[in-house]
């Protein structure tokens, strides 16, 4: 019976793979069905994940195992229920209180996190002696790193019109940004192509058995 379910799983996977790939021809009912199954399963997966990995260990288990020590968790539980009131238009405003807490916490955490990781740490890494490299390639690279970071930041300064020397600096910044986007594009393309190869391996190996998986 286990073997039957293994084979069934492979067939389901193969048919759904074809259903998704059929979109390359044009939008069609097979693709839409597969897409909706994906949406439904994703939603279901995150529901179950939320129950088992967030709400049970952080709220339900502490409350049931040692209520006296964890009664304070009733407050976020109540706020969580208030969040669900968003679905009832007449008392939708009640959900603003938990949203305010979530937004406040997120703002505070993000303020600190991005100040440290995205601003201070990046500036610290950039403020260096570019001529301290071991070889010419490294020195050229470090000069490019300093110039690229500075000009890139200048490009993001929109309070002054990009013209004259400021405009030229911003334009150099754009070139560095484009190289950065190009590299990101290359990596994304490679990642997607490796996924495509994975799908072909599944179809030709696991499903048809033409190649060794």
């Amino acid at each position, binding site marked *: 019976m*286990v073997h039957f*379910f293994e084979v069934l799983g492979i067939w*389901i*996977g193969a048919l*759904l793979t074809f259903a998704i790939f059929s979109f390359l021809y044009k939008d069609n009912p097979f693709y839409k069905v597969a897409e909706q199954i*994906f949406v439904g*399963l994703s*939603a*279901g*997966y995150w*529901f*179950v994940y*939320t129950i*088992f990995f*967030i709400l049970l260990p952080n*709220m339900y288990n502490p409350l049931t195992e040692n209520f006296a020590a964890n009664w304070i*968790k009733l407050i*976020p539980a109540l*706020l*969580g229920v208030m*969040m*669900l009131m968003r679905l009832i238009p007449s008392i939708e*405003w009640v959900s*603003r209180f*938990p949203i*305010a*807490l*979530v937004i*406040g*916490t997120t*703002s*505070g955490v*993000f*303020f*600190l996190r991005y*100040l440290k*990781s995205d*601003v201070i740490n*990046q500036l610290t*890494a950039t403020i260096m002696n570019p001529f301290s490299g071991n070889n010419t390639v490294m020195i050229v690279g*470090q000069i490019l*790193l300093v110039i*690229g970071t500075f000009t890139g930041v200048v490009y*993001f300064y929109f309070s002054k019109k990009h013209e004259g020397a400021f405009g030229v600096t911003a334009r150099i910044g754009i*070139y*560095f940004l*484009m*190289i*950065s986007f*190009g*590299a990101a*594009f*290359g*990596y*994304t*393309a490679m990642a*997607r192509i490796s*996924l*495509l190869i*994975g799908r072909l391996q599944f179809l030709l190996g696991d499903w048809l058995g033409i190649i060794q998986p």
Partner: protein
Amino acid sequence: MKRNIPLIITFLVGITVIFSEFIPHYPFGMLSGELENWFLIISGFAILLGQLSLFKVNILKIKFKKENWQYSVITLISVVVMIGTGLLWGTKDNTGILGNGDQIIAVMGSKPFDYLFDNVYQHLQATMFSLLAFFIASAAYRAFIARTTESNLLLIAAILVMLGNTSLGSFLTSWIPEAISFLHLPKLAEFIMKYPTTAGQRAIMIGAGLGIIGSSLRIILGIERSYLGGK
């Protein structure tokens, strides 16, 4: 009350979290930790809210027989099946309402939730993302015909990085003498990643970081209130 109390909550919570970084002693340190725990629990409910909203939207679509309502039936069945199997028999590491599902594991080889995840969800996800390989190729073509300095830089960087990370790139430039070995495609790709790409990413990170800091301050101080809704 409907607007001011949430604004006060946001201010107090945001300030407490920021203060706790500079004053990690009692009560700020403890408060910050507790608030982050609350945040996790409320976020869990927010995810549930999203699922319930999905139910509501699809049920209304079916009820009023809107265009393509038949597909909403499939969505709902998929959600119910995934949630049902997950809650009844649990997941790989968790026990469900009906126990650990040993009997069903003996029949299916794994728990129904994991079976669906491995044989349906993962295939759909991988295929959906692999579709992008084709659209990325199309996007590259369109970028190439733009013929501007920026688009050329983008494409040259992309091609060098892609070739540099494959055996073909290494093969194509294997004849280059050692004296100018930095022109080997793998080394060139490494150089692009290490210096100009890092510079671009740093600029983006600094710009985005400053933007996020500004937005956070605006929210904490109550200048930005759009999250409260328009009413």
